[in-house]
């Protein structure tokens, strides 16, 4: 079972699901930093399964939604990268308070991996960061979103010319998510130094054989032979069971 609640400042509350350990409390909290936009919906089921598996092996787990996304408060147009980085810190703090754990592990997925690394930096309470198909940097990620947007526009033969132009506006990204100028600029400024600033002994990358897979220099990496097509306008769910098992194994290993 899980316990769902809203937390954080009254003006920008975040939605969270807390999974307490089902047995043998190991006094260890895992915070899941989900991916963004369409990738969130595509991985929701998979990340819930990971959370349940971790709870069954005695871990506390907190899943949460960034501000302006999913069930959290606010509009995407008002969200910023700075805000999302703060949200990760807030979620870690909330998870520690709810669970009573001091030791924390992070699972970051795609852009969530980049944000998580930027957020936690060298914080000592973070024991390990497991990154699932991390994006290399914000600029590359925006380009990928842009290509998805172009594919969606291309596919829609009934779109009027004016609407087509609007849909290809500079701040319409992957699947029609409209981002603010500030968000786009902040994403562009997010580079791979977010990874290199973390001690490599704390990082563990689990990659799929997807074409967009990115390796973090000097960090141990496992390649799971599952194909996850991230750069697509299709909206099918991503549930690669062997990969999910690897993620869980990486998160529970001492």
């Amino acid at each position, binding site marked *: *079972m*899980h316990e*769902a*609640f*809203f937390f954080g400042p*009254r*003006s920008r*509350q975040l*939605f969270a*699901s807390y999974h307490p350990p089902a047995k043998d409390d190991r006094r260890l909290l895992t915070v899941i930093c989900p991916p963004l936009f*369409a990738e969130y*919906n595509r991985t*929701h*089921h998979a990340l*819930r399964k990971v959370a349940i598996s971790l709870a069954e092996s005695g871990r506390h787990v907190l899943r949460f939604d960034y501000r302006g*996304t*999913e*069930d*959290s*408060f606010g509009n*995407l147009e008002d969200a910023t990268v700075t805000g999302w980085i703060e949200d990760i810190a807030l979620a870690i703090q909330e998870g520690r308070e709810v669970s009573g754990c001091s030791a924390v592990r992070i699972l970051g997925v795609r852009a969530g991996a980049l944000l998580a690394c930027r957020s936690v930096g060298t914080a000592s309470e973070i024991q390990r960061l497991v990154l699932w198909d991390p994006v290399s940097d914000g600029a590359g990620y925006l380009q990928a979103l842009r290509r998805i947007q172009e594919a*969606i526009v291309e*596919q*829609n*033969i*009934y*779109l*009027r010319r004016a*609407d087509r132009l*609007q*849909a290809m506006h500079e701040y*319409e990204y992957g*699947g*029609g*998510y*409209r981002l603010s100028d500030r968000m786009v600029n902040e994403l562009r400024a997010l580079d791979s130094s977010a990874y290199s600033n973390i001690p490599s002994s704390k990082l563990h990358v689990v990659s799929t054989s997807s074409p967009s897979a990115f390796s973090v220099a000097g960090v141990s990496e496992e390649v799971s032979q599952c194909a996850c097509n991230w750069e697509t*306008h299709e*909206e099918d*769910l991503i549930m690669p069971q062997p990969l999910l098992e690897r993620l869980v194994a990486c998160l529970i290993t001492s």
Partner: protein
Amino acid sequence: MSDHILTEEPLQFGENGRMFGILTQLGVPPPNAQDLPVFVFLNSGLLHRVGPRRLYVRFARTLAEIGFTSLRVDLAGKGDSFPSPHLTTEQSLREDFRNIVSVLEARLGHVRLVVGGLCSGADDAIRLAPSDSRVVGMVLLDAVCDRDSGFRAREIVRKYTHLARYRRWLKKHIKALGNSGGETEQAIDKFALRDFPARQQLREAFQSIQGRQGRVLSVFTSYSEEYYNQAGQMGRVLELDGYRQFCTELYWPEASHTYSFELHRSQLIEEVKTWAAGYIACN
């Protein structure tokens, strides 16, 4: 969650709290709150309760601003709800709906309901409406509809007069030429996993809403073009006296099934809000 205007409350309910949903209400309920129906948004396919690109969240919060309460819910086995073992899909849906009604009545007293959703959410609303007299409205996004007598002619005209189709065809073949011996695009049957309600079920659903002096909003997008291609087709197929008095039927071929573009999402949210305001006018 709460702000100056609305409150949101996560609810776990049903046997052992296996079901999950989020109740959205105005912070201070309006004086006519008891007279207004409660909206229940049902999962679209396997997507969890937020809907495609957060559509259900935005419906809920927009409707709350004008006084409507809503529940966006994960049906058994979807989102954060656990499956209901040993039940067929149909039994599970009905059991879930009993649980939804129970939790809403426990919270709000006697309720009237508007059920709706996109794709399978619309299919489920159609299945649920006839058997529960509390259902006084449906919001059907890309619901099922039979072809009418003019469908084929309209399809031919559309097929051969739409320049963009030729452009796409040409691009596809040029791409294929450059890809000789390589992969070929697999045609995907988008309806393969969908269990459409039968025509009789659809008719019963509309008749039941009409009998309760309720209302129906149907919106069709380009997704439906293999079976629906003109506004008014649903009315012609159903042949119900007084259809136009209780039904609003819209055809938006430029919108995609999951409302990929913000401009179409905003348009739909506004449409739902305007349609819902009709319940306020009735009271």
